[in-house]
Protein backbone atom coordinates (compact mmCIF):
# COMPACT_ATOMS: atom_id res chain seq x y z
CA UNK A 1 0.00 0.00 0.00
CA UNK A 2 2.80 2.36 1.00
CA UNK A 3 4.70 1.51 -2.19
CA UNK A 4 1.63 2.30 -4.34
CA UNK A 5 1.25 5.67 -2.62
CA UNK A 6 4.91 6.52 -3.25
CA UNK A 7 4.60 5.50 -6.91
CA UNK A 8 1.45 7.60 -7.31
CA UNK A 9 3.15 10.66 -5.81
CA UNK A 10 6.16 10.09 -8.05
CA UNK A 11 3.91 9.87 -11.12
CA UNK A 12 2.14 13.10 -10.11
CA UNK A 13 5.49 14.86 -9.71
CA UNK A 14 6.70 13.73 -13.12
CA UNK A 15 3.40 14.82 -14.71
CA UNK A 16 3.81 18.27 -13.13
CA UNK A 17 7.35 18.65 -14.44
CA UNK A 18 6.25 17.61 -17.94
CA UNK A 19 3.36 20.12 -17.89
CA UNK A 20 5.61 22.96 -16.70
CA UNK A 21 8.22 22.17 -19.37
CA UNK A 22 5.54 22.03 -22.06
CA UNK A 23 4.13 25.41 -20.97
CA UNK A 24 7.61 26.98 -20.90
CA UNK A 25 8.21 25.61 -24.39
CA UNK A 26 4.98 27.15 -25.70
CA UNK A 27 5.86 30.52 -24.19
CA UNK A 28 9.37 30.57 -25.55
CA UNK A 29 8.04 29.69 -29.03
CA UNK A 30 6.14 33.00 -29.07
CA UNK A 31 7.84 35.45 -31.42
CA UNK A 32 6.89 39.10 -31.82
CA UNK A 33 7.51 41.03 -35.01
CA UNK A 34 7.16 44.83 -35.29
CA UNK A 35 4.22 45.91 -37.47
CA UNK A 36 2.69 49.18 -38.59
CA UNK A 37 -0.95 50.00 -37.75
CA UNK A 38 -3.26 49.08 -40.60
Amino acid sequence: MKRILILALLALGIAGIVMAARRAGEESAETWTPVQPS
Partner: protein
Amino acid sequence: MKVGVPAAGEAASRAAHSLAAHPAVDQLVIIGPANSRYYQVVEDPSDCDLLVVTGPDAPSRHASSGVPMVWDGPQRLPGVVVWGASPLGLALALAERENDPEEIAVAHPDLAPQLGGRVRFPDPVGRVGVAETAVGGRSLLAGKPNGSFAAVMVKGRDRSVAVVDDGAFMTGITLAAGVAVADGTPRPVWGDSLSYLRAVTEMGLVMAESATTPA
Protein backbone atom coordinates in the same frame (compact mmCIF):
# COMPACT_ATOMS: atom_id res chain seq x y z
CA MET B 1 -2.37 73.87 -34.33
CA LYS B 2 -1.55 75.45 -30.97
CA VAL B 3 -1.75 73.00 -28.09
CA GLY B 4 -1.74 73.85 -24.39
CA VAL B 5 -0.71 71.36 -21.72
CA PRO B 6 -1.63 72.30 -18.14
CA ALA B 7 1.29 71.56 -15.82
CA ALA B 8 0.17 68.44 -13.96
CA GLY B 9 3.08 66.13 -13.21
CA GLU B 10 5.09 63.60 -15.16
CA ALA B 11 2.39 62.43 -17.60
CA ALA B 12 1.71 66.01 -18.74
CA SER B 13 5.41 66.77 -19.01
CA ARG B 14 6.06 63.67 -21.12
CA ALA B 15 3.02 64.41 -23.29
CA ALA B 16 4.33 67.95 -23.88
CA HIS B 17 7.64 66.62 -25.22
CA SER B 18 5.86 64.18 -27.55
CA LEU B 19 3.51 66.90 -28.80
CA ALA B 20 6.29 69.42 -29.40
CA ALA B 21 7.96 66.97 -31.79
CA HIS B 22 4.77 66.07 -33.65
CA PRO B 23 4.33 67.60 -37.13
CA ALA B 24 0.65 68.45 -36.55
CA VAL B 25 1.55 70.72 -33.63
CA ASP B 26 2.79 74.18 -34.63
CA GLN B 27 3.13 75.59 -31.14
CA LEU B 28 3.10 74.10 -27.68
CA VAL B 29 2.61 76.07 -24.48
CA ILE B 30 2.48 75.01 -20.85
CA ILE B 31 -0.51 76.32 -18.93
CA GLY B 32 0.83 77.69 -15.65
CA PRO B 33 1.57 78.64 -13.04
CA ALA B 34 4.69 76.64 -13.79
CA ASN B 35 8.34 76.89 -14.78
CA SER B 36 9.59 75.31 -17.99
CA ARG B 37 13.07 75.22 -19.45
CA TYR B 38 11.74 74.15 -22.84
CA TYR B 39 8.36 75.77 -23.51
CA GLN B 40 6.56 79.07 -23.14
CA VAL B 41 4.40 79.20 -20.02
CA VAL B 42 1.08 81.08 -20.20
CA GLU B 43 -1.64 81.64 -17.63
CA ASP B 44 -4.48 82.06 -20.12
CA PRO B 45 -5.11 79.11 -22.46
CA SER B 46 -7.91 80.77 -24.43
CA ASP B 47 -5.94 81.17 -27.67
CA CYS B 48 -5.04 77.47 -27.80
CA ASP B 49 -6.80 75.19 -30.29
CA LEU B 50 -6.66 72.23 -27.92
CA LEU B 51 -5.81 71.47 -24.31
CA VAL B 52 -4.27 68.10 -23.43
CA VAL B 53 -5.26 67.36 -19.83
CA THR B 54 -4.68 64.51 -17.39
CA GLY B 55 -6.30 63.41 -14.13
CA PRO B 56 -9.84 62.72 -12.92
CA ASP B 57 -10.73 66.34 -12.17
CA ALA B 58 -8.91 67.96 -15.11
CA PRO B 59 -12.01 68.51 -17.31
CA SER B 60 -13.87 70.36 -14.56
CA ARG B 61 -10.79 72.51 -13.77
CA HIS B 62 -10.24 73.57 -17.38
CA ALA B 63 -13.74 73.57 -18.90
CA SER B 64 -14.19 77.27 -18.12
CA SER B 65 -11.48 78.16 -20.67
CA GLY B 66 -13.81 77.04 -23.45
CA VAL B 67 -10.92 75.29 -25.25
CA PRO B 68 -11.70 71.73 -26.40
CA MET B 69 -9.87 69.10 -24.35
CA VAL B 70 -8.10 65.81 -25.01
CA TRP B 71 -8.32 63.74 -21.82
CA ASP B 72 -7.05 60.43 -20.47
CA GLY B 73 -10.30 59.70 -18.62
CA PRO B 74 -12.68 56.96 -19.75
CA GLN B 75 -15.84 58.85 -20.74
CA ARG B 76 -17.17 61.99 -22.36
CA LEU B 77 -17.50 65.03 -20.10
CA PRO B 78 -18.40 68.68 -20.88
CA GLY B 79 -15.61 70.33 -22.88
CA VAL B 80 -13.89 67.02 -23.68
CA VAL B 81 -13.64 66.27 -27.42
CA VAL B 82 -11.32 63.26 -27.17
CA TRP B 83 -11.33 60.84 -24.25
CA GLY B 84 -9.64 57.54 -23.45
CA ALA B 85 -6.16 58.88 -24.34
CA SER B 86 -4.51 56.33 -22.05
CA PRO B 87 -3.08 52.79 -22.16
CA LEU B 88 -6.64 51.46 -21.66
CA GLY B 89 -7.80 53.49 -24.66
CA LEU B 90 -4.82 52.23 -26.64
CA ALA B 91 -5.96 48.66 -25.91
CA LEU B 92 -9.44 49.40 -27.26
CA ALA B 93 -7.97 51.14 -30.32
CA LEU B 94 -5.85 48.06 -31.02
CA ALA B 95 -8.92 45.85 -30.64
CA GLU B 96 -10.87 48.00 -33.12
CA ARG B 97 -8.38 47.14 -35.86
CA GLU B 98 -8.49 43.38 -35.28
CA ASN B 99 -10.93 41.05 -37.03
CA ASP B 100 -11.64 38.82 -34.08
CA PRO B 101 -10.44 40.28 -30.77
CA GLU B 102 -11.02 37.58 -28.15
CA GLU B 103 -9.05 39.04 -25.25
CA ILE B 104 -8.04 42.64 -24.55
CA ALA B 105 -5.49 43.05 -21.75
CA VAL B 106 -3.48 45.84 -20.16
CA ALA B 107 -0.65 45.69 -17.62
CA HIS B 108 0.50 49.05 -16.30
CA PRO B 109 2.33 50.17 -13.14
CA ASP B 110 -0.40 52.78 -12.46
CA LEU B 111 -3.15 50.13 -12.27
CA ALA B 112 -4.19 48.37 -9.08
CA PRO B 113 -2.66 44.95 -8.35
CA GLN B 114 -5.05 42.05 -8.98
CA LEU B 115 -5.11 38.51 -7.65
CA GLY B 116 -7.65 37.03 -10.06
CA GLY B 117 -6.72 35.40 -13.36
CA ARG B 118 -3.30 35.75 -14.91
CA VAL B 119 -2.41 36.87 -18.41
CA ARG B 120 0.92 36.22 -20.09
CA PHE B 121 2.20 39.44 -21.72
CA PRO B 122 5.29 39.69 -23.93
CA ASP B 123 8.62 39.95 -22.09
CA PRO B 124 9.80 41.74 -20.03
CA VAL B 125 6.32 42.11 -18.52
CA GLY B 126 5.49 38.38 -18.33
CA ARG B 127 2.61 36.97 -16.30
CA VAL B 128 0.41 39.51 -14.54
CA GLY B 129 -2.59 39.11 -12.23
CA VAL B 130 -5.60 40.79 -13.85
CA ALA B 131 -9.24 41.54 -13.19
CA GLU B 132 -12.04 42.30 -15.61
CA THR B 133 -12.95 45.95 -16.05
CA ALA B 134 -15.25 47.77 -18.47
CA VAL B 135 -14.20 50.77 -20.60
CA GLY B 136 -16.18 52.19 -23.47
CA GLY B 137 -18.74 49.42 -23.27
CA ARG B 138 -16.07 46.73 -23.74
CA SER B 139 -14.63 44.32 -21.26
CA LEU B 140 -10.90 44.14 -20.78
CA LEU B 141 -8.43 42.55 -18.37
CA ALA B 142 -6.22 44.91 -16.42
CA GLY B 143 -3.61 44.61 -13.69
CA LYS B 144 -0.37 45.91 -12.24
CA PRO B 145 2.86 44.21 -13.32
CA ASN B 146 6.07 43.91 -11.32
CA GLY B 147 8.51 46.61 -12.38
CA SER B 148 8.15 49.73 -14.48
CA PHE B 149 7.21 48.22 -17.85
CA ALA B 150 3.70 48.28 -19.29
CA ALA B 151 2.03 46.18 -21.96
CA VAL B 152 -1.15 46.38 -23.99
CA MET B 153 -2.21 43.22 -25.82
CA VAL B 154 -5.10 42.02 -27.96
CA LYS B 155 -5.35 38.31 -28.68
CA GLY B 156 -7.27 37.05 -31.67
CA ARG B 157 -7.74 33.69 -33.34
CA ASP B 158 -5.07 34.29 -35.98
CA ARG B 159 -2.70 36.71 -34.31
CA SER B 160 -1.97 38.73 -31.19
CA VAL B 161 -0.88 42.36 -31.27
CA ALA B 162 0.92 44.13 -28.46
CA VAL B 163 2.68 47.31 -27.41
CA VAL B 164 5.30 47.07 -24.66
CA ASP B 165 7.32 49.94 -23.24
CA ASP B 166 8.23 51.82 -20.10
CA GLY B 167 4.98 52.60 -18.26
CA ALA B 168 5.54 56.35 -17.86
CA PHE B 169 6.65 56.67 -21.49
CA MET B 170 3.51 54.84 -22.64
CA THR B 171 1.30 57.06 -20.45
CA GLY B 172 2.75 60.27 -21.91
CA ILE B 173 2.46 59.13 -25.52
CA THR B 174 -1.03 57.66 -25.23
CA LEU B 175 -2.15 61.01 -23.79
CA ALA B 176 -0.39 63.15 -26.41
CA ALA B 177 -1.55 61.05 -29.38
CA GLY B 178 -5.17 61.94 -28.60
CA VAL B 179 -4.68 65.14 -30.61
CA ALA B 180 -4.61 63.02 -33.79
CA VAL B 181 -8.27 62.10 -33.18
CA ALA B 182 -9.48 65.65 -32.53
CA ASP B 183 -11.40 66.89 -35.57
CA GLY B 184 -14.27 68.65 -33.82
CA THR B 185 -16.48 65.61 -33.40
CA PRO B 186 -16.43 64.36 -29.77
CA ARG B 187 -15.24 60.76 -29.66
CA PRO B 188 -12.95 58.36 -27.83
CA VAL B 189 -9.53 57.49 -29.24
CA TRP B 190 -10.88 54.14 -30.41
CA GLY B 191 -13.47 56.04 -32.47
CA ASP B 192 -10.68 56.82 -34.97
CA SER B 193 -8.38 53.99 -34.04
CA LEU B 194 -6.17 54.08 -37.13
CA SER B 195 -5.28 57.77 -36.71
CA TYR B 196 -4.63 57.16 -33.02
CA LEU B 197 -2.43 54.10 -33.58
CA ARG B 198 -0.47 55.91 -36.29
CA ALA B 199 0.11 58.81 -33.90
CA VAL B 200 1.30 56.63 -31.00
CA THR B 201 3.74 54.80 -33.27
CA GLU B 202 4.99 58.09 -34.78
CA MET B 203 5.59 59.32 -31.23
CA GLY B 204 7.72 56.30 -30.37
CA LEU B 205 5.67 53.30 -29.26
CA VAL B 206 6.28 50.08 -31.20
CA MET B 207 3.45 47.75 -32.15
CA ALA B 208 4.23 44.07 -32.65
CA GLU B 209 2.34 40.96 -33.74
CA SER B 210 2.67 37.30 -32.92
CA ALA B 211 1.24 34.70 -35.28
CA THR B 212 1.03 32.10 -32.54
CA THR B 213 -1.56 32.60 -29.84
CA PRO B 214 0.31 32.80 -26.51
CA ALA B 215 -0.41 30.18 -23.85
